[in-house]
């Protein structure tokens, strides 16, 4: 019995390896904010959504399969949460009632298996009931297949058979056992003393006043004594206990699988509701096959940023264009980094089958997303800053394939502007020729200007908007790089304020 809600034809693999640049992506795109919003403190959800978001799909059909299921979820949130609560209830029951098969004694294994199975049966009935009541409200291929499987496999005949077994295995008339003597009637290596055999009987020695002694007794409830008796019974029921325990394990993993398959949708629902609450735009993106498609978006936001400030944030628009290189320049604190994150997040969200934080988003599927951000001084001290940046860049190049995307944020600024521009220029030119898309936030004027002068139709230049009075709008507008970043404004603002005081 398979749920197949993440893929049409296979299970979601929790062991699947994350991309090599997992840490960079999470850090640079502030993905932990996104993950935490999806998981809402649930560690398991966190694990699954992290896996799902970072291990991107590359096939538009697979993406649409998930999108359809997620749309069903958004339409029927309470039903979906009810299904998800079944595996959770199983875990809760196990913990609450101390269910589990840990014992080294067959009698205990049998007992715990019976209790576990009885509990499972109740939950399976509940699942059937949900399917009976709600299946018609679901339109996606994934959910329709899922519900028809439940109805077929968990029919009334199945339930009556299981109940009959569980009754019989309680052995109301006792266990009949035959046995032989084996070896090992001696205990471990206790050091044994032979009592001194003095003249006279045992009773005489006890009452003898010479030998002072003190005795103690254990309570009849002490389990040690009772154990001996149950051992015989254990041998008889060993094999049936094993069979039953294995069955319990099978159902247990069915619930576990169900939980895994639904977790991504639970996380997406959580995120959907939070974005709705702060009136952030949400829409299902249109994935395009690489090479054919174009990039376009409307009111595109960085979801992590919106979730952090907890209100609607400035979005950016782009009319359909075939973009290979985007260079973003302009004022500090003008929304450049946020924009870069919004591009990266949207790409990842699209390629895991989720919605994006935009009124509309459409992009080519990429074969890999990479980020190259300026980092804090390397505390391992073994390399200088530029060296460290280039080392990271080299690792990225090792993993790049055509149709990948690289997001640069103030890269190669660790050296002077002239040399930084030279390095950046060589790298970007090579990447473009290899069909790698580049989004580059930079202060390197010489670098940005070199590309601006080429006036290639696949290149786009954006600038953080700054009104004549110096106020930032956090919106990006089309515009070629300018040669200052308004540092003088800030200097005057901060250092002159001091004099006024």
């Amino acid at each position, binding site marked *: 019995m398979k749920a197949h809600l993440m893929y049409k034809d296979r299970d979601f693999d929790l062991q699947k390896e994350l991309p090599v640049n997992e840490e960079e992506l999470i850090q640079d795109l*502030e993905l932990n*904010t996104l993950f935490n919003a999806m998981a809402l403190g649930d560690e398991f959800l966190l694990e699954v959504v992290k896996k799902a978001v970072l291990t991107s799909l590359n096939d538009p059909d697979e993406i649409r399969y998930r999108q359809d299921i997620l749309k069903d979820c958004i339409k029927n949130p309470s039903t979906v949460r009810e299904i998800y609560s079944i595996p959770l209830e199983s875990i809760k029951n196990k913990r609450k009632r101390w269910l589990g098969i840990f014992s080294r004694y067959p009698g205990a294994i049998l007992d715990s298996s019976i209790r576990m199975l009885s509990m499972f049966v109740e939950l399976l009935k509940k699942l059937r009931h949900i399917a009976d009541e709600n299946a018609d409200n679901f339109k996606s291929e994934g959910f329709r297949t899922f519900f028809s499987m439940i109805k077929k496999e968990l029919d009334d005949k199945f339930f009556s058979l299981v109940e009959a077994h569980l009754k019989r295995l309680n052995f109301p008339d006792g266990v009949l056992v035959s046995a032989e003597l084996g070896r*090992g009637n001696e205990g*471990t*290596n206790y*050091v*044994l*003393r*032979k*009592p*001194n055999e003095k003249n006279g009987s045992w009773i005489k020695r006890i009452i003898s006043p010479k*030998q002072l*002694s003190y*005795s*103690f*007794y254990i309570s009849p409830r002490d389990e040690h004594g009772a154990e001996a008796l149950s051992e015989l019974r254990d041998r008889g029921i060993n094999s049936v206990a094993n069979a039953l325990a294995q069955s319990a394990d099978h159902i247990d993993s069915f619930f576990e699988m169900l939980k895994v398959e639904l977790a991504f949708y639970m996380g997406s629902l959580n995120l959907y509701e939070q974005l709705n609450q702060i009136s952030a735009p949400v829409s299902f993106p249109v994935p395009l096959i690489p090479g054919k498609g174009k990039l376009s978006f409307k009111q595109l936001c960085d979801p*992590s940023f919106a979730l*952090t400030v907890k209100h609607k944030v400035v979005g950016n628009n782009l009319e359909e264009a075939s973009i290979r290189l985007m260079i973003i320049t302009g004022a*500090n*604190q003008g929304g450049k*980094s946020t924009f870069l994150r919004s591009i990266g997040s949207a790409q990842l969200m699209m390629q895991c089958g989720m919605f994006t934080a935009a009124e509309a988003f459409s992009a080519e599927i990429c074969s890999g997303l990479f980020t190259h*951000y*300026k980092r*804090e*001084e390397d*505390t391992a*001290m073994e*390399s*200088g*800053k*530029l*060296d460290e940046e*280039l080392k990271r*860049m080299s690792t990225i*190049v*090792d993993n*790049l394939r*055509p149709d990948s995307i690289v997001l640069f*944020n103030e890269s190669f*600024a*660790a*050296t*002077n*502007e002239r*040399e930084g521009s030279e*390095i950046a220029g*060589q*790298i970007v*030119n*090579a990447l473009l*020729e*290899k069909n790698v898309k580049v989004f580059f936030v930079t202060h390197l*004027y010489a670098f940005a200007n070199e590309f601006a002068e080429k006036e290639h139709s696949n290149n786009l230049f954006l600038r953080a908007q700054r009104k004549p009075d110096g106020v930032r709008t956090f919106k990006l507008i089309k515009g070629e790089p300018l*040669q200052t*970043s308004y*540092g*003088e404004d800030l*200097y005057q603002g*901060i250092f002159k304020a*001091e004099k006024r005081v």
Partner: protein
Amino acid sequence: MPITFNQTIPTKAFSNQEYQPRGETRPIPFRSILYKTPKSQEEPETKATPKAPKTPNTIEKPETSNAPEFFPDLNLDQIVDNITAGKEEYNLKPFFYNSLSDIDTIKYRQEIIKDIDNTPLFQNIKSFAEKMIKMRRYLTLADKLYYKYHKEGWFLEAADLYCDAVTNLAEDLSTAEINSRGLMSFREYIQGYVNSEEFSAFIKETKKLKADLGTVKYSVLLKTNGGRVTKYQEEKDYTIEVEKTFEKFKQGAVKDYTVKLPTGTGMNHIEAKILELAARLYPDIFSNLISYSLKNANFTDKKITAFDREIQFYISYLEYITIIKRAGLQFCYPQVSDNDKEISAFETFDTALAYKLVIRDLPVVCNDFYTKGEERIFVVTGPNQGGKTTFARTFGQLHYLASLGLPVPGREAKLFLFDNIFTHFEKEEDIKNLRGKLQDDLVRIHDILKKATQDSIIIMNEIFSSTTLKDGLFLSRNILKRIMKLDSLGVLVTFMDELSSLSGKTVSMVSTVVPENPTQRTYKIVRKPADGLAYALSIAEKYRLTYDSIKERIKI
């Protein structure tokens, strides 16, 4: 859980009495191995008054348990982490977080560390410390235990160890060659303590009780519903008897059927019951044990336990630098001044980096620096990955370590006693902070300039590198001028060559490369004019990131 010295968690071992020398008055009563005794002369050693009057040259600052702000930038956090690793129970970090502000206390400490460095006393103190650690573990254990006699058994073990530790240390100190004021007065204190009547009586009682308990021996007869305890009656080992009976059947080696039972300290209710009954068989010994532990509940001496903790400040540092010295590197006792800004250090190095390199058997490069006349600011330029940041850290570390009264890396050093160190190293962007990075930098630098005085040290690393060259130059120039106006000492690491010759207060230092191979750095920072050469592209080549290399590397 090991007990710690943290003052907020009073433990049996440290909330105790202090031995009071009787009769004769001593010239320098022992106060602390870390600080001289400014207050003890005036104040009688009664209860510590809550608010001690602050004399102008107060030396004992309150212990802060927070690292100074500049610690991570200078990698001093790594240094202190390595020094104190494995010594958590002493809570030594606060000692390293509190720099000194007067020259004489620095000398007080230098004297002590000279007495310990490379002398038999070092090992003597270490073995004292080990006994004290064990003693505290036993006491903690005893505290946690539930059953009366079990508890007191561990308590007695602790007391016994304490007696040995203190007696041995007193003996060791009496034969050691001591020149420092601190250790001389401690020696006098501990000898007075050991020879006191109270301590002699305590030792005697402890040893007697241990011997008595060694004579207890009993047997238990276990049944299904209980057991019976008697004194040991010379019953024979039955196992040996049975083995003898069947010895004739023995053929060769046989399988071992022994089940490995878990071992460890602890006692269940049955074992406890048996012990209780055994104790009834030896009533005198056990009643002695009870009254012993009541009477001696707080047997440790406050000053000795304080010494045990504080001396670890020196011991831990010496252990740490010993590892570095093994690679042939030197440490020296710096000359520290609070008015002379002509400073110098020769064959010095970044201690945190050296530690890392030495334990991996890698070479360490040493550097020299000095200021003359009105020179104040080292402006460090030159190729990246050439040791510029390391130089900035070295400068800061050196001054800080000297201000703790510790030996510093180098053959010879003359350093300035600062009132504060300020650092500004490039920080990563943080989404939670909605102000732009440049603004942050400026606000932070503004803050530094407001707090800094002529006695401060200011270290800035690659500031304004995220803005345009034009902006960067404008801002850096203005900032540097302000620092020079303050007359503070400092280091500025930058790629803007123009800054290195701004005025007579700047000293230009340049990181260097091997002339015949520009990709190879020497890590030498030399005093010479900035030469405008950076070697960025050579590193790009090294990582195969030039246009041609990348095109080759990305496969369709």
